[in-house]
């Protein structure tokens, strides 16, 4: 929100020696964040009020007019592009030789052959950015020729971060900001300049009938009928302040409601008084149509609170008025609405219509109901100075079915000091709160604090809220840092976190993988490219973009798209990601932690090698992680997963559990991914890591060094290439012998000197006797027995 310091100075004397930046810093440190400070420096000299007495288009131009101007003591002609001018309008005019910073010195020129003296200045040259190309119109109260003092146009504007005042409805107006400044600089906040409420209620005029159906939805509705208003412009100072804080001046009536909203935070709405008589506040059926004053026909959502007059809807409560009852230049009587609505109702309605307005944004912050009448009092105060024939046409009428409950908080100053970790006395607490208009009284050691209504709508409820007020005025940066005294507790470890961190450290620090992050959702375009249909997925209601609604069931597609990127500048790489996957195994709420890996090498024929290396990597990783091997078995594969759709896919088992899949990336998928990847070899693995988190530490005993030497014997056997190592492993594991210490797998070989359809597996047997040295006979006997076992199991021995 933009704040004009000229405006603030109307309510509080700011220290003259402090720069706007210094003021902003103080505000940031004590109240709310100032995001920017801007100086408005128009540098105006020689500006006067000019009345347009005639207006003629300049031939040969699109939109230029020659205007004859009455400057009081003389008449001049100027050419102007300003839109919407009419004879009789009074505008801000720069005389010949005048100056504004944006345009420099204003000289006489000729336009289309016509002499043009001085210039009707556009809004942006006068610091009124929202009226960029338009003239600034002046009220009929300003006589032609009146000099407009230059300092009127200059100001400082600070921008307060909206998020930082979301909880402070009182800071959504200049008067509330001024109150904080007064407390910061320990000076007095000037009373809000208004006519008394009694003056408006004691007049001998009729009441406006106001009916409220639901006091929760509309706790208060105040109204006042006024007459003698016109479509004239607002006073220049008001237009300038509005312009400085980003609001385009429109007419005195509209500007007044905007001005008071920006001053007090209370939105108001002016109905054309001829079109609205009594007021009813109630809900309409959803689906009804209503045209708002921006001339858009809107379909009412559920729970739309409406203002009605004679049973006809005239305004969407708290959001926007209706087109039929809108004020115009011809309006001479208005009915001014100043109401308080339930924040949730306004928020829901504005959200349902996707139509947040300045008014609805304020109502949803829980406004002070005391402000409804105060804002009307302020309106009268300002309006009667402007409109020559201004008169009241009703009593100040007020329906207040649900008065605000007062908030009183008991505060223990000793607790305040303890909670802050900083000494503070009862007197200090009292002084700080009193400066912020809290009422404080003593009750023994405690203080009883009455919260002012503008802080009592939601902001201040409990002692901690009061502590915040005290602490920020003590100054957060005056509190001495102090380390806490701690209680030692051994909390149960988070096993999942522990395994994930270790798993990732091993992959990245020991096994050569580079970690990447991908999004949680699939990119449909990419899935189409790799021809993968994931089937039903958990989806987003509001995806970041169309095609990004489905949650990933596997990390592999994300890794594949990263692989495609990296093949451009690397010849070999290993990628890994640790992240959440949503496989929908049990139900819609499944979320699992997966590790995905892709290894790639720019070489056509290396996929077996890559797969063997990746299997070895997974096995070594498993040993390091959970002190157990990873084994591989034939997998049930989901053919729709293009990366699994290869005979070279295996299931990964760790500690007897099926925890993942491993395989090569088939040629077709590589080609679909990127034509160039056809010349690469790629392997992948994906592991569900949650089951590993809770594995016990397995018993792990170390062997003593044998007293007598042991001997290793290698055996090579031919098996069917279509068979599985796992089957052979089981057959070999069935062999027993007193001397046998261990049998290990050495390697698997296909190729030269091996017959087609066969594979050579090499095993190493270690034998020994704990009580003696082995003899030649032992070796011979063992070799024969083992070879017999292999042969009996259908293996052909290879020499």
């Amino acid at each position, binding site marked *: 929100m933009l704040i004009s310091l000229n405006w603030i100075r109307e309510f509080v004397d700011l220290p003259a020696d402090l720069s706007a930046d210094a003021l902003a810093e103080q505000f940031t440190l004590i*109240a709310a964040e100032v995001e*920017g400070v801007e100086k408005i420096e128009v540098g105006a000299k020689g500006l006067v009020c000019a009345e347009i007495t005639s207006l003629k288009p300049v031939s040969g131009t699109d939109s230029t007019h020659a205007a004859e101007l009455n400057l009081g003591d003389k008449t001049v002609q100027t050419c102007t592009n300003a839109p919407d001018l009419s004879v009789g309008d009074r505008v801000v005019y720069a005389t010949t030789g005048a100056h504004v910073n944006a345009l420099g010195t204003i000289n006489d020129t000729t336009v289309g052959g016509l002499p043009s003296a001085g210039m009707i200045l556009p809004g942006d040259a006068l610091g009124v950015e929202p009226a960029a190309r338009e003239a600034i119109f002046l009220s009929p109260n300003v006589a032609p020729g009146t000099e407009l003092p230059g300092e009127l146009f200059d100001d400082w504007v600070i921008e307060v971060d909206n998020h930082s005042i979301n909880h402070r409805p009182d800071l959504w107006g200049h008067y509330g900001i001024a109150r904080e400044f007064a407390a910061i600089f320990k000076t007095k906040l000037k009373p809000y300049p208004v006519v008394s409420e009694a003056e408006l209620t004691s007049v001998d005029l009729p009441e406006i009938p106001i009916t409220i159906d639901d006091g929760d939805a509309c706790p208060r509705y105040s109204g006042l009928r006024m007459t003698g208003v016109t479509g004239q412009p607002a006073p220049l100072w008001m237009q300038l302040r509005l312009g400085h804080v980003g609001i385009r001046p429109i007419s005195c009536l509209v500007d007044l409601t905007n001005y008071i909203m920006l001053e007090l935070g209370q939105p108001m709405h002016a109905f054309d008084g001829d079109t609205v008589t009594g007021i009813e506040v109630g809900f309409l059926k959803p689906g009804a149509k209503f045209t708002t004053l921006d001339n858009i026909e809107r379909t009412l959502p559920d729970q739309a609170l409406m203002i009605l007059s004679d049973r006809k809807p005239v305004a969407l409560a708290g959001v926007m008025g209706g087109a039929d009852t809108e004020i115009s230049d011809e309006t001479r009587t208005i009915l001014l609405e100043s109401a308080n609505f339930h924040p949730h109702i306004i928020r829901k309605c504005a959200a349902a219509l996707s139509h947040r307005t300045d008014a609805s944004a304020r109502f949803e912050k829980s406004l002070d109901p005391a402000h409804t009448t105060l804002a009307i009092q302020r309106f009268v105060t300002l309006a009667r100075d402007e409109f020559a024939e201004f008169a009241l046409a009703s009593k100040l009428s007020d329906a207040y079915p649900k008065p605000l409950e007062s908030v009183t908080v008991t505060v223990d100053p000793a607790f305040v000091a303890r909670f802050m970790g900083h000494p503070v006395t009862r007197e200090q607490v009292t002084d700080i709160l009193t400066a912020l208009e809290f009422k404080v009284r003593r009750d023994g050691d405690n203080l009883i604090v009455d919260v002012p209504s503008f802080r009592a709508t939601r902001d201040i409820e409990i002692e901690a809220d009061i502590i915040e007020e005290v602490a920020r005025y003590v100054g957060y940066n005056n509190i001495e840092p102090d380390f*806490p005294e701690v209680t*030692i507790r051994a909390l149960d470890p988070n096993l999942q976190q522990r395994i994930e961190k270790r798993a990732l450290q091993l992959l990245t620090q*020991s096994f050569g993988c580079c970690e990447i992050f*991908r999004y949680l959702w699939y990119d449909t375009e990419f899935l189409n490219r790799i021809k993968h249909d994931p089937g039903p997925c958990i*989806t987003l209601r509001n995806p970041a973009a169309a095609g990004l609604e489905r949650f990933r069931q596997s990390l592999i597609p994300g890794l594949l798209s990263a692989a495609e990127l990296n093949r451009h500048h690397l010849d070999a790489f290993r990628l890994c990601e640790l992240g959440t996957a949503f496989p929908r195994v049990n139900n819609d709420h499944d979320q699992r932690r997966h590790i995905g890996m892709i290894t790639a090498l720019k070489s056509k024929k290396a996929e077996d090698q890559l797969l063997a290396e990746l299997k070895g990597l997974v096995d070594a990783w498993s040993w390091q992680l959970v002190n157990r091997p990873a084994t591989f078995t034939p997998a049930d594969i989901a053919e729709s997963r293009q990366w699994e759709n290869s005979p070279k896919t295996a299931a990964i088992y760790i500690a007897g559990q099926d925890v993942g899949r491993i395989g090569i990336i088939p040629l077709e998928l590589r080609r679909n991914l990127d034509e160039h990847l056809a010349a690469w070899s790629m392997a992948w693995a994906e592991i569900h890591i949650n089951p590993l988190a809770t594995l016990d530490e397995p018993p792990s005993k170390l062997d003593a060094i044998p007293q007598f030497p042991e001997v290793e014997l290698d055996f090579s056997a031919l098996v069917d290439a279509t068979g599985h190592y796992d089957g052979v492993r089981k057959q070999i594991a069935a062999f027993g012998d007193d001397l046998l210490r261990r049998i290990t797998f050495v390697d698997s070989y296909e190729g030269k000197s091996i017959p087609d359809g066969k594979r050579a597996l090499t095993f190493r047997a270690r034998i020994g006797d704990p009580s003696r040295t082995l003899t030649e006979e032992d070796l011979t006997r063992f070799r024969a027995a083992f070879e017999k076992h292999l042969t009996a199991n259908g293996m052909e021995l290879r020499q």
Partner: protein
Amino acid sequence: MDIDQLQQTLADLEAETTAKIAGITAIDELRHVESQTTGKSGTLGQMLGTIKDYPADQRGQVGKILNQAKGKLTGIFKQAGDRIRQAETSAEASKASTFDPTLPGVRPPLGTAHPVTLVQWQVEDVFQRLGFMIETGPEMETEYYNFEALNIPALHPARDMQDTFWMTNNMLLRTHTSPVQVRAMERHGPPLRVIAPGRCFRYETIDASHENTFHQVEGLMIDKNISIANLIAMMRLLLREVFGRDVKARLRPGYFPFVEPGFELDMSCLICDGKGCPTCKHTGWIEILPCGMVHPNVLRYGKIDPHEYTGFAFGLGLTRLAMMKYGIGDIRVLTGGDLRAIVPTPRLTGPTIKPESAGAAC
């Protein structure tokens, strides 16, 4: 075989052996020939076994002749051995003279964790030293933990501050790591000290400095008499440890419904040293650490009595921290998957010749 013949045979053997080993350059081969010659079952070894076949009066002489021959042959083998070892030693020495001590080694594949993970581990180390435990929470979260238990009821304007990804199963993607606060309170009860790093999601338009996916670390400490002064001390310590030096910081009011009071901790901009630059929007300060005293309602949601315990909580943007630490200008590269942007180049390319500093930095 008579003695003359024997002597002739031995002379032949000697000549033959000498010739045979002349060309041998490997010790193993020499040992092999030696065992074939003087070994138990070698030529000479077998001849020693024939002594008993000679008439008793010749046996002494034959033994003497054979022993002499064995001595001679042993000498020949020893000499040859010396020659070979000498040659090997000088070959190694001559090879060593072309050894280049400066040549880089052959590197196994060099992996690395993601920059955000590296920063996360660093923060975890700091807090583990202080006795904080590391907690985690789910990325797909319930409305209850993400909002309600954090004192953000439905229709609260603060829900605007965290535009949320909603899922069709009525879950949401957590908008911050703060849901772990109440989860940790429920799991451990008071007093406790935990941090909870993790991934968060907000419905935002992506550009160079905004992502819909980012990392935070949540911190929570609850004990009897935890004060604002404690919070300030811990936050300053955190900054010093993470940045490796004293960092100028300031605390100012900030609003988060789950803390009361709430603070924003700004640190002096490291890019411009607080003088003002585009990174700090010319303020000299960078908003780095939103924090505050845990709201009594949140303690109640975590089944902790706010009259007995107080606590503080903070949230640190790990993504922002990583970008500052590694000089990453565009947030999008962190989820982009292109290793060039997230792995120091020399780790990818192998030994780097130019730029020279690249090697030293990594």
